[in-house]
């Protein structure tokens, strides 16, 4: 049931998310958000191919969606207070955004009626449509001042601070790493692999890598007795 949403058809990440949910005829709930997370990510990938700067705007919400999806898949998972807030926040934000989108639609209807009000035009104003008639005594200095005032009043682009992001490890890279470890040592222990991780994110990625490798039958995992260390073996070594 894949369908194309063109990037021009949504104004931003919340709009995309809203359209995905409405397309599935769902309400805005954590479950439906988890549901459309994969589709959202696919779209972000597409956008990234064309315009990386625009794609960056979609990333924060992408991570929030993944958080929600994890929570829905693992209900016993404990989220930190901050994470819980983020989850509730996204639902609320999407509701509020939907609200304003509806209002925008109503404004569009009103605008399309083209019922505009005109104020009384004096002769001066009519001429302004076609040519520039400055007041009689205006000087170059005055024009300069006025122009500077206009520039000053225009909202300025804000400089967004730059930050270096830490390099993170991808699933593929982790799978490579584990593969190499297995090849050189024939068997390794799960806790050894996990101990290598430098961050919680890396722990999660490692765990996912192992699950994926089991699924792809690259490795085999053994535990002889309850609570014994878990061993990881290359798949062909399994009996």
């Amino acid at each position, binding site marked *: 049931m894949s369908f194309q949403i063109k990037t021009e058809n949504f104004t931003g990440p919340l709009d995309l998310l809203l359209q995905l949910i409405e397309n599935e005829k769902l309400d805005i709930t954590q479950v439906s958000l988890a549901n459309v997370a994969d589709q959202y990510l696919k779209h972000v990938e597409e956008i990234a191919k064309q315009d990386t700067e625009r794609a960056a705007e979609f990333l924060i919400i992408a991570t929030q969606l993944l958080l929600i999806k994890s929570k829905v898949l693992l209900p016993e998972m404990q989220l930190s207070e901050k994470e819980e807030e983020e989850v509730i926040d996204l639902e609320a934000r999407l509701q*509020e955004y939907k609200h304003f989108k509806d209002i*925008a639609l109503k*404004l569009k209807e009103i605008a399309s009626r083209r019922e505009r009000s005109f*104020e009384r035009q004096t002769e001066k104003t009519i001429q302004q449509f076609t040519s520039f008639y400055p007041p009689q005594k205006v000087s170059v200095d005055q024009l300069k001042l006025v122009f500077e005032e206009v520039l000053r009043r225009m*909202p300025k682009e804000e400089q967004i601070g730059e930050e270096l992001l830490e390099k993170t490890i991808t699933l593929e890279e982790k799978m490579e790493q584990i593969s190499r470890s297995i090849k050189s040592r024939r068997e390794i222990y799960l806790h050894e692999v996990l101990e290598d991780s430098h961050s919680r994110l890396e722990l999660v990625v490692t765990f996912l890598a192992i699950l994926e490798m089991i699924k792809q039958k690259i490795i085999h995992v053994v535990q002889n007795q309850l609570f014994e260390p878990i061993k990881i073996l290359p798949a062909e070594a399994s009996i």
Partner: protein
Amino acid sequence: MSNSNLKSIIESILFVAEKPISLNELKSITKESTADLKTVLGEIQNEFQGHGFNIVTKDNYYQLVSNPQNADIIAKFFNEELRRDLSQAALEILAIISYKQPITRVEIDKIRGVHSGESIRNLMIRGLIEEKGRKDSPGRPILYGTSINFLKHLGLSSVEELPKVEELENSEGIEE
């Protein structure tokens, strides 16, 4: 002065004024109370029903304008094209500002989930929104609100005529 006298005076003032007149200006000229002035202005507007005039108001400014239903003919009269449609982004931002004014750019960004700076500049240039002072918080960011021109553009008399949204009051706001 008598009610009909006051009415007549206000009608004339609105007619000759070239731009929106503030309630304070009317007060200093007529020496009448705010309440009386507002009552008379309301009466004048009611009497305009079915006629070629309307009174548009924003932030206690008032302006005499044409009946919005006659827009097409008037545009022809001026040989003017009725403005192009507003973009989806512009409509979203106008929707947000109309209901939440005064509001800062950052607050608008948060609601939309995208940077709105460029669209906001466009709307300022088109005169549909304007600066309404600064917020009393760190950075003293600029506050935006819709202009009286925004109402004229849509043919509305005041922000009260914007579509009603009951649920808006119940929804949770975004915390800074």
